C-alpha cells in the first residue's frame, strides 16, 4: 500500500467532516457533566460525615465495653474519687525508706556475725547466706530508688540490741533470726501503709513477702515441730521514729 502525502483538506471537506467530532465531543461533555452531577449527593454525604467529629453519645450500642478486653473504658465510667498516686517516692516516703534501709543493713550485719561465729553449717549455712545476701539486695534496691538520700548506714540501735542473740547454737540463732525477720516484715508492712509513691510501695511489698518466707524457714531450722510454730508471726513493727537514720 502506498502512503501518500495527503493534501490539505478543502473548506468543503472540512465542513462535511465537522459534524461527527462535534457530536462526539458534545456527548462526552454531557457525560462528564452528568457524572459530576450524579456524584453530587454522594459527595454531599461525605462532606456531611466529615464534619462530625464528636463520637456518638452514650446510650448507643457502640459505646459498650467488654470486660474481657484489655482496654479500660474511657467514656461513661463514673468519675474517679481519688487522684492517681505518684510513681516516685515523696519526701515523706524517702524518710521511711531510709529507715527501712538502715534496718536491712543491720539485719545483714547480724547474719554476718552469725555466719562468722559458725552458728550454721552445711545446707543451713548456705540458706542463711542466701538470706543474708537478700537483705543486702533489699538495701541496695532502696538505694536505687531514693538515690543520694540513702545513707547506706545500718541502724546501730537495732544491731546493738540484737547482736548478742546472733551468736550461739543453731537453734538459738535461728529463733532470734526468725523473730527478727518477723519484725522486719511487720515494720515494712507498717511502712507500706504510709507510703504514697507506687514504686516504693511495690518495692517494699516485694521485700516483705520474702521476709515472711525467711521467717518460716528459720522457724523450721530452729526446730519448730508444729505448723503453727512454723507459721508463727509474732513480729512487732519498729517505729521509724525510734530508729532514726543518723
Amino acid at each position, binding site marked *: 500500500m502506498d502512503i501518500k502525502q495527503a493534501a490539505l483538506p478543502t473548506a468543503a471537506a472540512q465542513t462535511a467532516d465537522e459534524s461527527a467530532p462535534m457530536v462526539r465531543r458534545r456527548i462526552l461533555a454531557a457525560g462528564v457533566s452528568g457524572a459530576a452531577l450524579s456524584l453530587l449527593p454522594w459527595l454531599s454525604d461525605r462532606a456531611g460525615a466529615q464534619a462530625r467529629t464528636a463520637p456518638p453519645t452514650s446510650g448507643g450500642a457502640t459505646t459498650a465495653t467488654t470486660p474481657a478486653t484489655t482496654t479500660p473504658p474511657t467514656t461513661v465510667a463514673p468519675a474517679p474519687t481519688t487522684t492517681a498516686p505518684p510513681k516516685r517516692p515523696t519526701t515523706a516516703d524517702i524518710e521511711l525508706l531510709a529507715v527501712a534501709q538502715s534496718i536491712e543493713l543491720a539485719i545483714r550485719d547480724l547474719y554476718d556475725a552469725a555466719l562468722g561465729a559458725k552458728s550454721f553449717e552445711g545446707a543451713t549455712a548456705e*540458706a542463711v547466706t542466701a538470706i543474708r545476701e537478700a537483705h543486702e539486695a533489699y538495701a541496695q534496691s532502696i538505694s536505687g530508688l531514693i538515690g543520694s538520700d540513702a545513707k547506706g548506714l545500718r541502724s546501730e540501735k537495732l544491731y546493738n540490741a540484737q547482736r548478742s542473740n546472733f551468736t550461739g547454737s543453731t537453734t538459738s540463732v535461728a529463733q532470734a533470726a526468725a523473730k527478727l525477720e518477723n519484725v522486719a516484715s511487720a515494720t515494712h508492712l507498717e511502712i507500706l501503709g504510709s507510703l504514697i509513691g507506687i514504686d516504693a510501695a511495690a518495692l517494699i511489698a516485694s521485700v516483705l*513477702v520474702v521476709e515472711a518466707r525467711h521467717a518460716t524457714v528459720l522457724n523450721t531450722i530452729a526446730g519448730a515441730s508444729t505448723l503453727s510454730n512454723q507459721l508463727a508471726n509474732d513480729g512487732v513493727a519498729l517505729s521509724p521514729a525510734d530508729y532514726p537514720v543518723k
Partner: protein
Amino acid sequence: MTIMNNQTSPDSFVTAEPLSRRGLLRVGGLTIGFAALVAACADEVKEKKPARVGDVTPPAKLPDAVVTDGVLFRTAASVHYSIIDAHKISKELGKLSPEQTSIVDAYIAANETAIRDLAKFTTDAGSKPWTCANPRFDRVLLTPIRAHITGRPKEGSEESDVAPSDDPTRDSLALAYAMETVAAEMHQSFVPQLSLPKYRAAVMQQSQAAARRAAALALAINPANIVNPLSLKNANVSTPTTVEATTTTAAQEITKTSAATTTTVAKPAPFDFQQYYAIPSQFGSLNAVQLAVGVPSGGAQFTINLETPSLNSFIYDYQTEC
C-alpha cells in the same frame, strides 16, 4: 480507503470547533469542583441509618468494666474461694497422710479467714463482697489440673486419653503449694493498682500470710528445698549440698557381638520432677507460677502456668451473681 498522512491538523480545524478538548476538560473540572464545593457546604446528614426491611433487635449493651479498689478486693476474695476448692481437690484426690491432711485443712481455714478480712475491705471500698469462686480461674486452671490427676478420655483434637496421675499425693501437694504461691503473688500484684496505702497494706497482710503457708508446704514436700539454687548462685554459694548424686548410665553396647545375644540397654534417666522451694527468689516474684502434674509422658509432665488475676478475670461491680 482513508488516506494516512503525517500532517498536523490545520489550526482552523480546532479553532473552528466551539468545544475543544481542553475546553471540555476545563468544563468538566469546573463542574466537579463546583460539585465538591456544594457538597462541603451541604447540611450535616442527621439520619445515617440505611434503608432496611424488617426489624432487627439492637445488640445488647455490655456493662462498663471499671477497675476499682472494690473490684480488686472482690477478685482477691474470689481467688481465695477458688484456692479453697483447689485444696479440697487435693484432699479428695491426693491420698494424703493425716499430717498432710491437717496441713491442707489449716490452709483452708486460713483462706476462709482471708475471705472474711477481704469482705470487710470490699465494703470499705464501696463494693459488695463476693461470695463464691472465680469462674474463670476454676474453668481455665482447676478443671485441667483436676483432669490430669484423675485422668479422663480424650477430647477434641487430642490423640490419646489423659492418663491418671502416677502419684496423686505428689501432685496434690504441688497443687496446694502453687495455690498459696499464687495467692501471695496476687496480693502483691494488686499493690500498684490500689489507690490507698491502707488498702495496699491490707492486701500485703494476706500476701505474707500466704507466702508463709507456701514456704511451710515446700518444706513439708521436701525439707531440703530451702532456697532455689538460682538464689544460691546469686549469693555466690558455690555448691548446693542438697543436689542428689548424678546417676550414671551405661552406654548401649550395640557393636559388641558376643556369643550371647543379650545387649545391655541403658536405663532411662530418672524423670526430673518440678521442684518447689521455700524461698524461690530473692524478691517477691510476679511471674506465673508453674505447676506440673500428672504422669510424665514423652519426657515431660503436663505443666500449667498460674497467672495472677487480670482484666479478664476480675470480678467487676456489675457482676452480681455467683
